[in-house]
């Protein structure tokens, strides 16, 4: 897998994760995968191998805050919530995503 390709995927992944946390509030990694899957009507499936490194990177960049908590079932889990930086980042990424899709669909129409 070339690096460039990976970057695009990662960029999309962080947009999806940030948006999911924005929509649902504080949540753990497993809930994130199921939420994205459901919200995308099973179209998108998040790879665990990408999710956790991505979450940790976002935590280091200060986009999300992580804390250990207990689920309803009484299991210890790490919960992620959005920081102010994360919200700004989400706005930026959403903006650029929409610009990209607009551009791509136009290009497709006129091609």
């Amino acid at each position, binding site marked *: 897998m070339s690096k460039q390709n990976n970057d695009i995927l990662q960029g999309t992944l962080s947009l999806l994760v940030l948006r999911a946390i924005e929509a649902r509030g504080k949540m753990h990694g497993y809930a994130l995968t199921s939420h994205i899957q459901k919200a995308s009507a099973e179209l998108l499936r998040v790879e665990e191998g990408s999710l956790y490194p991505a979450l940790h990177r976002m935590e280091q*960049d200060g986009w999300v805050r992580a804390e250990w908590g207990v689920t309803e079932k009484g299991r210890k889990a790490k919960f992620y919530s959005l920081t102010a930086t994360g919200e700004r980042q989400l706005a930026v990424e959403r903006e650029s995503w929409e610009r990209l899709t607009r551009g791509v669909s136009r290009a497709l129409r006129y091609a």
Partner: protein
Amino acid sequence: MARWHRLLNLFRRARISQAIDDELQFHIDERVDELMAGGLSETDARILAARQFGNATLYRERTRNLNVSQALEDLFEDAAYAARSLRRAPAFTAAAILTLALGIGATTAIYSVVRTVWLRPLPYSAPNRVVRVWEKNSRLGIPRFSASVPNFLSWRERSSSFESLVAIQGTNANLTGQGEPERVRSLAVTARFFDTLGIRPVRGRAFAPDEDAPGHARVAMLSERLWQRRYAGDPNLIGRTIPLNGENWIVVGIAPADMGFASDIDIWQPLTLDPSRESRHDHHVVVLGRLKQGVPTGQADAELNQLAAQLEHEFPDPSQDWRVLVAPVLDWIVDRDTRSGLLVLLIAVGLLLLVACINVANLLLARASSRVQEFGIRRALGAGRGRLTRQLVTESLGLASAGGASGLLLAVLGVRGLRAILPANVPRAAHLSLDFPVLVAAVALTFVTGMTFGLVPAWVASHLDVRTSIRQARGASGSGRLRLRQVLVAGEFALASMLVASAGLLLASFQRIQNVDPGFQTQNVLTARISLPEARYSRDRTLAFQRDLERELSAIPGLQAGGIARSVPLGGNGGTMSMGPADGAPGSEQKIAVAFQMARRGYFQALRIPLRRGRLFDERDQTPTRSTLLSEGLAHRLWPDARDPIGRQVRFGDGPPFTVVGIVADVRQLTLTDDPAPVAYVPYWFLRDFFVVMRAPGEPAQLATALRQTVAKLDSAQPVFDVRPLADLRDADSARQRLNAFLTGSFALLALALGAVGVAGVTSYSVIRRTPEIAIRMALGATPERVVRAVTASGLRVCLIGLVAGLAGASALGRVMARLLYQVRPDDPVIFGAVAAVLLGAALLASWMPARRIARIDPVTALRKE
């Protein structure tokens, strides 16, 4: 912030890993729950969940790497790996570390000398504003000279570039009082001396501005050394008096040990200038100054030269063509010869270090070829090119660090040794130490060294072809590496040749200095100094003492000759005067700067300076008659066409005429290496400070007792000092050349040895690599001798290339050394020929020894192994 966390996390790796495991485990557990809710058994659910999850270890690694600084962790791993692999090859490791230690240690030691003597800032406030003001005269061929007191006073009055200008003059004093009477060196300085340099006394105060005025109370400062040695650092000494030359002087302060120069000075006294007793002809004070803030040296120089032109107009005779040179004080303290010497040593030791680096690079390459398989396997298992390179560099840096640490030990020993053998006339050498900047330099050097020798093998290893390297440990790729190693060895040999050639030049130069005929005979002569205190010795008493001393000397049994003189040749106490013929029209005569010597008859006899014409001084010259003896060269310069200068007249400065009574042979009065300076001798010049020279068969030191007894008989309170055989003065004069030759020679020998080891290493490598080929040749009928010859020749060819390049480099280096060479051209063909012969001999030996092994190859066994 994030990076900081990741660094910190390095030390809590276990906890981080645990947290990541927990998080991932939670994910799997949730999935299992979900699958079980869908109707699967727990076992199936677990298997499916694990399968869906994928490579947990990889995810864990990836996640963890985000939290921990991977580069550092790799470094730890690499370091541990390097340590293991170095331990596995102890002979290689020891050889490499020893080589590096020699290079780094020698370089550090020499650098510490360069730093202490040359680079270390002077202990003054704003030292770059402190300058020395020289007088110069291009017509007399004098580029730098002391100043006359009237000129100094004119500068001080009329210039505006300086905050202050001070004059200093060396003298010495008899120190009596408690304890043995002793002779101490003293420096007389005008009152603002300490302000001008910006030096604070360690105790008490410096001189007050009016303390150099005539008739002021006698005040003195002591050096810290004398204060500690003689007065045990007694703080109550300040304000008390000490007897100097029979008079009481009040001690007002203690000068610090490091004054930047004058490290042998023990007493500081105010210099009282008496313009009525001074002449503009008489250049005898050193002038230092502090430039005003913002005034560049060039501006001060221009101002004083303008002033010198004015003075020439006002006082045409004594000031004719005298100009001024203002230069940083460090240029005076550390003169150009010292700098060139240091530079050459630094270059030499740098070359040695480079040779050491190449040698280790070669060792590493040799090792790399035996590790080809290891690298191949690691590459095949997925180690990245960068990772392999990094690991090899770590190994090199590890080697360099070990070499650097051992080198530092060697440097400590080296500095200790250098302190013992550095000639006394090397400025500031007394403070030689391995200080912090030197340590920093040594560490930097170690690092640069490690990178230098480590990169080549790392590059080679990272360009391995994985498949071939696993299949054959030695083989196809070997020839490229052999070429690389040959290039390295040729380079190494080139550097070694440069060093050996430089050492050859310096040694030849030193040899020639040893063979210089100074014009006098140094063997069996003792010199000593006597300084009569003014308080007890009037003019008449001084004369009587000298007359009595000469008479008593002639009564010493076994003494062949003995006499009194103002100075001794090569003793560094020479004085210079301008003089010219007094028989031409006034003003038209040519003036010459001459070494000026007062000497009695016995001086010429003791030193065996041959008389060429006329007569020596005799009883006719006992009282102040105006007769003079000239050196041959001087007479020839004064009257180039005259057949007989006897009876002609000369004039010193603006003094009365003197009649020439004799011509003596030229002598090297000031230094061994300068051409004999013109010398003028007078029989009597009133002085209380003079030398005694004595000649007797046998060890000159034995004469010392006889001299002391003789002097004690005349005056029991009179010390005799600076008692030295004349031969020692001669040795001291060439001590620097000896040291340069010795150090460069040692570096050259080391480099040559390393170079030879390198050649031998490459040759034996090529023998091993070519064994099958050689075996075939021998099987086809080639005699062992022929094969040995062929292999030796290939080693020799590599050296020859290096040798040619090295000799070219050496003649370039010779230009830097030109200042240090005496009667040796920097491209002297004889020396270069000899150097080439030595190097070729070494190369031949180094190629032939390993090649000889070929004779022991059994073709059958060798071929079967293939």
